């Protein structure tokens, strides 16, 4: 008896792209249909688009798994299931962000007018008014916090990467890690206590807020700069030393320029991290309805605190206050987005060219 040689198959049945698209369409149709019916019947309040997207994603994963199991067999079905789950996880992570931005946009749009950017809340108790004083305050305080944190943060990182060995470096790393976890309210209380000791109780001014924010910002700058400096190849440092260049010039002219794109990105991200802080500013900067350009005296308005007070203490025309709160939030989101875009642009422009 000779064994019958069956050639191993190299082709298999598989679901075409069109079928997958149809499956996706059907799942979406079903999910959106369910929620449309729910809202029409008055069970859910309005059409819930976030839930509909989520449910259609789940439906699509299940449907395509079953289809694939029937047509393609177990291995490919598992592949489709895993791919589908990973993609769904991505959608789940993205949904809150999209929902948040769209809600802020829809609610903030009515007051996104020239008046908002040209007036403060001085003598405004109803409609009108704006957030110019808060925008100026946020920009000034954030800028001051950046001016304080960036030199300290970058120099600390340089110490840790280029000079630090032994116990002191380990201690600094430990305390930077601890600082990363400090609750922002504690930073605010620290700044308040510090300035209360020096300048008397009840002190409130912008620069105090900048100090509080820089406590939150420094660890982020240290960490990101440290990582960027560690990425600079040691060979470049050695090449520089071998040319008879002293260590400090090597750091200033070789190491930092090579890492500058990443360092700036890190600084920008740390600014985004602190620009929305509310609690410390509420304590040490307070709130004002009038314009105050001076960081060193009197209370100042900032966007996060502006949003909070507009919502928390509504005046005679409640809707006007709520609209202003939404617009303030939207402007804050815009500022953060702009900073992130600038960070990307800068790191692209400054990255060493021709690296392979």
């Amino acid at each position, binding site marked *: 008896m000779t064994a019958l040689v069956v050639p191993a198959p190299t082709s298999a049945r598989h679901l075409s792209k069109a079928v997958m698209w149809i499956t996706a369409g059907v799942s979406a149709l079903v999910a959106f249909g369910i929620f449309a019916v729910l809202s029409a019947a008055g069970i859910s309040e309005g059409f819930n688009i976030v839930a509909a997207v989520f449910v259609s994603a789940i439906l699509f994963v299940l449907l395509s798994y079953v289809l694939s199991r029937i047509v393609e067999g177990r291995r490919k079905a598992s592949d489709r299931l895993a791919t589908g789950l990973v993609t769904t996880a991505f959608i789940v992570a993205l949904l809150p962000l999209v929902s948040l931005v769209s809600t802020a946009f829809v609610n903030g749009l009515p007051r996104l007018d020239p008046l908002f950017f040209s007036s403060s809340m001085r003598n405004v108790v109803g409609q009108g008014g704006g957030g110019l004083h808060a925008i100026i305050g946020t920009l000034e305080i954030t800028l001051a916090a950046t001016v304080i944190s960036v030199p300290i943060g970058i120099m600390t990182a340089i110490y840790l990467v280029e000079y630090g*060995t032994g116990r002191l470096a380990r201690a600094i790393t430990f305390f930077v890690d601890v600082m990363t976890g400090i609750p922002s309210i504690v930073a605010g209380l620290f700044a308040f206590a510090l300035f209360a000791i020096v300048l008397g109780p009840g002190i409130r001014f912008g620069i105090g807020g900048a100090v509080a924010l820089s406590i939150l910002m420094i660890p982020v700058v240290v960490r990101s700069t440290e990582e960027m400096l560690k990425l600079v*190849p040691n*060979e*470049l*440092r*050695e*090449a*520089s*030393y*071998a*040319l*008879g*260049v*002293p260590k400090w*010039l*090597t750091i200033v*002219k*070789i190491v930092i*320029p*090579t890492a500058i794109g990443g360092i700036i990105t890190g600084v920008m991200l740390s600014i985004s991290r602190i620009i929305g802080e509310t609690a410390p500013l509420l304590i040490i900067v307070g709130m004002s309805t009038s314009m105050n350009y001076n960081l060193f005296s009197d209370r100042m308005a900032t966007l996060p605190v502006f949003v909070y007070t507009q919502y928390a203490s509504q005046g005679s025309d409640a809707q006007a206050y709520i609209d202003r709160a939404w617009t303030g939030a939207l402007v804050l989101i815009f500022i953060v987005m702009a900073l992130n875009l600038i960070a990307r642009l800068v790191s692209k422009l400054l990255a*060493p*060219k*021709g*690296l*392979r």
Partner: protein
Amino acid sequence: MSKRIEVKDLNVYYGKFKAVEDVSLTIEPRTVTAFIGPSGCGKSTFLRTLNRMHEVIPGARVEGEVMIDGKNLYDADVDPVLVRRQVGMVFQRPNPFPTMSIADNVLAGVKLNNNKMSKSDAEHLVEKSLKGANLWKEVKDRLNLPGSGLSGGQQQRLCIARAIAVSPEVILMDEPCSALDPISTLAIEDLIDELKAKYTIVIVTHNMQQASRVSDKTAFFNIAGTGEPGKLIEFDDTTTIFENPHVQATEDYISGRFG
């Protein structure tokens, strides 16, 4: 321009580990000296002690003397930065500065030390150094482009140009051709032959043919085993080492019986 190097009873340590033991040799001016030996035998470590580059590695220290024209490199009043301006170095992997153009890479040693230089002097130095490194013809039209865009062999010659632009007395080369193809290697070997007229050159190589081609004298290093320090086994004229070595281990190594 070039100087004699005399090494006396040199021991090199990394922390408590003794990496190189009891090396004594004399390197004559305007010669090429090759260090050969199996991996980990301390050739590169020893080479780096000749311009105090080993100090970059934490815990590395040296006992003994390295005399360059009668002056001990390890005297207390010697500044390693000034030593390195006289004893240049080329590394195993080409490492041009990625943030700089080709011309700036050549001028790096001068510019990074904050020395001011007129534009015409700078241009002259770039041309002279690149010509010295046999790279001028290939890059003269793109001096302002980044150095990291060149091929590996060109990058290595750029690094040599950068090293000779600060006019050192001695050039140390740590396996300069190990990352390069045969044609680039040939270009660098020809260059070493030309540079010999002006500089004292010390080269570490794993390629014994290369050592026999380019060097006047050869030093063979070996280790007894892992954890043992590397030792200088034999140091003599290259022809003697390759044709009539006095030590059995040298003969075994160059004839390919081990290593």
